[in-house]
């Protein structure tokens, strides 16, 4: 009986940590060179990279919309980067991603205290304002949306990506 109870406890623990789509999102530490990793690994795929942060008000509004978008557009790669300022909070970041339906996205978190350098690698002109969205076409053309993205604009871009494949 005790053994069964223990097995049950372990099973619950396993389910909580299992890498299923319902599981809490995994966060990749975003450090020096990570931006090039992101670009390389999504080369040839239309990709949305969304920069946000747990303390940013407009981000809280936009994140669930991005979750909806991801659900409706499986052909678009969705990458999020928590670019709030360190000390970043992995717990709060995971929780917000999960609530926004973004557990299955490719999720990163800024993990280098020298944020100026991380931002410089992504876009030398970016001073840290969030939210910020980069739309990367199959050919690697980057369109940057500063501030909250209008989902209609993102939809239009997504349609163009689909049209380009036909």
């Amino acid at each position, binding site marked *: 009986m005790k053994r069964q109870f223990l097995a049950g406890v372990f099973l619950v623990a396993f389910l909580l*940590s*299992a890498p299923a789509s319902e599981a809490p999102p995994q966060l990749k530490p975003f450090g020096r060179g990570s931006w090039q990793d992101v670009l390389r690994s999504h080369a040839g795929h239309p990709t949305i990279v969304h920069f946000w942060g747990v*303390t*940013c008000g407009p981000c809280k509004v936009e994140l669930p919309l991005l979750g909806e978008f991801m659900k409706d557009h499986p052909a678009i790669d969705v990458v999020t980067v928590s670019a709030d300022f*360190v000390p970043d909070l992995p717990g709060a970041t995971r929780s917000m991603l999960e609530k926004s339906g973004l557990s299955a996205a490719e999720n990163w978190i800024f993990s280098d*205290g020298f944020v100026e350098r991380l931002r410089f690698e992504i876009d030398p002109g970016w001073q*840290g304002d969030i939210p910020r969205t980069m739309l990367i076409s199959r050919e690697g053309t980057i369109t940057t949306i*500063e501030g909250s993205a209008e989902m209609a604009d993102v939809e239009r871009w997504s349609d163009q990506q689909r049209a380009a494949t036909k």
Partner: protein
Amino acid sequence: MINLLNRGGKAMLRGKILTAIAFALWQTAAYGQMNHQHGSEAACEETILRCASKVTPTFGPDGTLWLAWMAGGQISVASSKDAGHSFSAPTQVTKERLNLDWGPDARPKIVVDRKGGIALAFSIFRDKAFNGQVLYTRSADGVKSFSELRPITPSNESQRFEALALDAEGLVFAAWLDKRNRVPAQQSGQKYEGAGLFFAASNDGGVTYSEARLAQDNTCECCRLGLAFAGPGRPVVVFRNIFEGGVRDHAVITFADPATPGEVHRVSRDDWQINACPHHGPSLSISPTGTYHVAWYTNGKVRKGLFYARSRDGGTTFSTPVPIGQPERNPTRPYVMVGPRETAMVWKEFDGEKTTVNLMTSHDDGETWSTPKTISSTMDTSDHPLLVSDGRRTYLSWMTKADGYRFESIEDEP
């Protein structure tokens, strides 16, 4: 490994589960370790000055330099009688571990009055939703002890980005960004943008503050404020406003007296329409002639980068904005200050590896400025550069992760 210790199907399953748990724990530990090494803005985790991420300086009337800093999750203060060469043993102001606001534009504020009373204010995140709270405290015995931390307003809605200043007659004025008007707006089905610019004043050196009042609603919610005095009892606040159409350009309010905010005037038409947190607030200093000096960051349609403008009519109109720094080096974090002999401006530039602090000065009240020169640099993360004066000289105050705290005169020997 764990599988080998188990026998039977159930045990095998349990083994796999244990492996998964062990892996998850290992991942967490590895992440924590990595975070500890590189993830912090601070060089170390203790409460000492060397471990600080944010340091705020001020001079007392007797020429003593006072610092308030954030380190190890605490606020501490210390003083120096020799312009930053050596410091007194620090006094820890906060006792319990608070979730201090770590935003790039957050820092503890400190003012020292004529009687040696020290007033402090700072923000914390008071819940898991990152709602902020502005706390204040005071020491009347040369920082031997501090009064109990108190919220600056009883409102439970989020407050952040406080500014604190002392006028020539001992009035302590506080301004901050406050979300309290969001609730009634949303209850009546209206969209609420930004935050209110609220203020309170203290006539007893920061022991008690007046009831919080609104100066301007719907301002940008995530940038530091610029605060100075146009004369005793006449505070002036520069802030990132939200103008028609969601344009986050800068504005100024001059108070007729500590309870009466004046009209809102626009500093510049940059046309930065953005629904985001720029985390990049302005700087304000007012000269004895009454000239307002303002420096700010924008990424507007009209102009992008750091800019400076001045007003000679009490903040009603401003000069054409002048760009600051080298655009290809990302100029950020401007700070302007009218010193005893000149008006000085510092800011950061970044070339991809190295951050520099650059300085330019004006000897004609902001009409013309010297060629910028680099006065300090560091190879890792750093706080904003700040200027402070003891009435005789102007000093740069700059906390860096790699090289520690720097406090140096920006001028040659007098």
